[in-house]
């Protein structure tokens, strides 16, 4: 597949990793604004800080003069962080004006991003927003009274969790779907990562498709695939079928297990222990007894022989001729 990044993206990334002069790598000590987004579990995370030239009387006239980032993520996540800082510094914006920078500006600055990497630019814009909110609190600016509709980051904790993999709630998803004009499930995944991992939330009731329909009206739903995936079960229950019960009365698996245990304890184990060995029953199904020889017996060349000639013979004679012993 190769690298589908623009030259600008590649350059910003390489400049950053090589610490070229003029890059924005780092963290500002006691910053005027600090915003974080993402987590290490999700595969990318950014810590974004900025410093302002404080206006003597009006905080709204503060100007961002320095921006820095630390980013855990792929090539495009690091390039997006670099782009965000460059855009802000070049424009000499007030924090409130900086809010107008969208993820699209970051994408444009980079000369485009592969669509499955759009979420990297969204992460940058989210971190910026969080940092501006932080700045507003520190400077006593009430963003809401300025008519700025900021989805507070408390949204992440509010609302109903829809995408478990990336911890995204319905409140957050609805706002972002509108803001970023996301029309399809793929667009949601590319921009917000939601539904990108286990995919379980895509089509379940109250899931991404339902949210998409709610936001845009169901006529807009152009993605009506059937549920793709079932979750794997790591712990299948072992239903040993009891419905093929034969005519004559059989020992139940429990009874059989008990008998085997008794015979081993009374007759077999003492014989093995005489030679410094022991035996463990790993499992019993039907009349198959899975055994493991232990101690001195485990490495013995004749272990297989012992199991067949001694253990199996005794169990057959004492309990049932159908018994078969398998060495684990």
């Amino acid at each position, binding site marked *: 597949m190769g690298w589908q990044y623009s030259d600008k993206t590649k350059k910003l990334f390489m400049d950053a990793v090589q610490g070229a002069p003029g890059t924005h790598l780092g963290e500002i000590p006691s910053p005027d604004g600090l915003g974080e987004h993402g987590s290490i579990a999700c595969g990318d995370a950014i810590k974004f800080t900025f410093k302002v030239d404080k206006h003597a009387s009006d905080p709204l006239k503060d100007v961002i003069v320095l921006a820095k980032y630390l980013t855990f993520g792929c090539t495009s996540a690091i390039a997006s962080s670099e782009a965000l800082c460059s855009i802000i510094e070049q424009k000499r914006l007030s924090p409130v004006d900086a809010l107008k920078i969208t993820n699209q500006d970051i994408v444009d600055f980079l000369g485009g991003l592969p669509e499955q990497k759009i979420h990297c630019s969204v992460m940058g814009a989210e971190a910026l927003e969080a940092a501006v909110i932080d700045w507003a609190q520190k400077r006593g600016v009430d963003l809401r009274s300025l008519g700025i509709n900021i989805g507070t980051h408390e949204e992440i904790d509010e609302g109903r969790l829809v995408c478990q993999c*990336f911890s995204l709630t319905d409140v957050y998803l609805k706002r972002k779907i509108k803001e970023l004009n996301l029309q399809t499930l793929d667009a949601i995944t590319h921009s917000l990562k939601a539904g990108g991992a286990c995919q379980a939330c895509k089509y379940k009731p109250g899931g991404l498709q339902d949210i998409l329909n709610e936001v845009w009206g169901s006529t807009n739903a152009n993605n009506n695939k059937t549920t793709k995936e079932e979750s794997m079960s790591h712990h299948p229950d072992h239903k040993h079928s009891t419905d093929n019960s034969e005519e004559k009365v059989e020992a139940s698996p429990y009874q059989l297990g008990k008998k085997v245990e008794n015979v081993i304890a009374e007759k077999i184990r003492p014989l093995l222990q005489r030679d410094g060995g022991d035996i463990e029953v790993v499992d019993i199904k039907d009349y198959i007894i899975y055994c493991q020889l232990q101690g001195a017996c485990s490495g013995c060349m004749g272990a297989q022989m012992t199991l067949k000639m001694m253990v199996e013979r005794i169990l057959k004679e004492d309990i049932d001729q159908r018994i078969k012993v398998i060495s684990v």
Partner: protein
Amino acid sequence: MKKIYLDNNATTPIASEVFEAMSPFLKEEFYNPSSSYKFADIPAKTIAHSRDIVCRFLGNVSPKEVLFTSGATESNNAAIFGAIKANPSRRHIITTTIEHPAVLEVCKEAKRMGLEVTFLPVDSNGEISTRAFVQALRPKETLLVSIMHANNETGVIYPVETFARLTKETDAEILFHSDATQSIGKLPINLNENFINVDMLSMSAHKVHGPKGTGVLFIRKGSCWRPYLIGGHQEQGRRAGTENVAGITGLGRALELVWEHQAGPTLGKIRRLRDKLENALIEKVPFIKINGSNENRLPNTLNISCHFIEGEGILYQLDTHGISASSGSACTSGSLEPSHVLRAMNVPFTAIHGSVRFSLGRYNSEEDINYVIKVFPEIISNLRKISPYWNQEKNCPRDEQLIATKL
């Protein structure tokens, strides 16, 4: 620029001998091997010749037990779906959580078809408990067990011999399949000796310096199995489609070369270079972890996790040095989900995203490895400088993360 290819578990460079053997069949010897005129004899004979090589390679099996396919993915699909079709009264399959998608997804499809599937978990070394395996077996109910011989991501080797024996001793009618794509040429496989209890085996040519698009499905005589690709009479009606004559020729030649190299020092050299790389990286780069058990691992595979950074940035920088490798990180997977193998092994997220797989091959040299050892530590420290989880001043992880990841 240098060209250092360390992604041999993905595919291998085609050997020039293989290319030479194939090329007539892409040009003048184009005839359909099924045709009756004498010109068609040459392609028909080369297929028979390749089949003989495969038979000897797998331990003197019968030519009727060897089907040529379009690769290991088809072989796996054919093995599993063919077994399901032929055994309608049995509805239970056992596989593992770390299979290649060509088995894992097919088993999930079987589950959607209404079968019950047990996906055996692995421990943090990537190993499967024999006890859990035994407990999953169900006499008279289980129809198929499919367990890979060696894992493509970590190189962990599974005791197929033991699993197959336990399966057959429990119930001889349970079919045992193994995907041996990664182990061919690296581990001993003999269907009449150590793999005597294996009924079906998948392999492909392009992992052993053969061409892409050619593979083999071994099916033991007498196995309860139905054809998967239906149509023409080829392969005795068990795998329809005009034979990929050039590909099959290349597969045969590639296996002959495997013999030559098995007899020589190649495998030992690969292991020595892998160990050298592994030891040097452990020594030079702090906070890395090897994924996969030490003893039971393919001699060519090294999967390492570099904590607190993301694998794609590692691969990109390696690429700028001309080094080809791969990663289990989400950003390189095509989806947003990191490696299912490393997740099954409970590798912490911080480490999965920063995983890199180097897989060596026949044509790697000491200089290749020395060059990787030279550039890799800087690539990692470059990215850690950027990472919010790294303490740039003290050049170590930030404490809370250390605790969170239980390093």
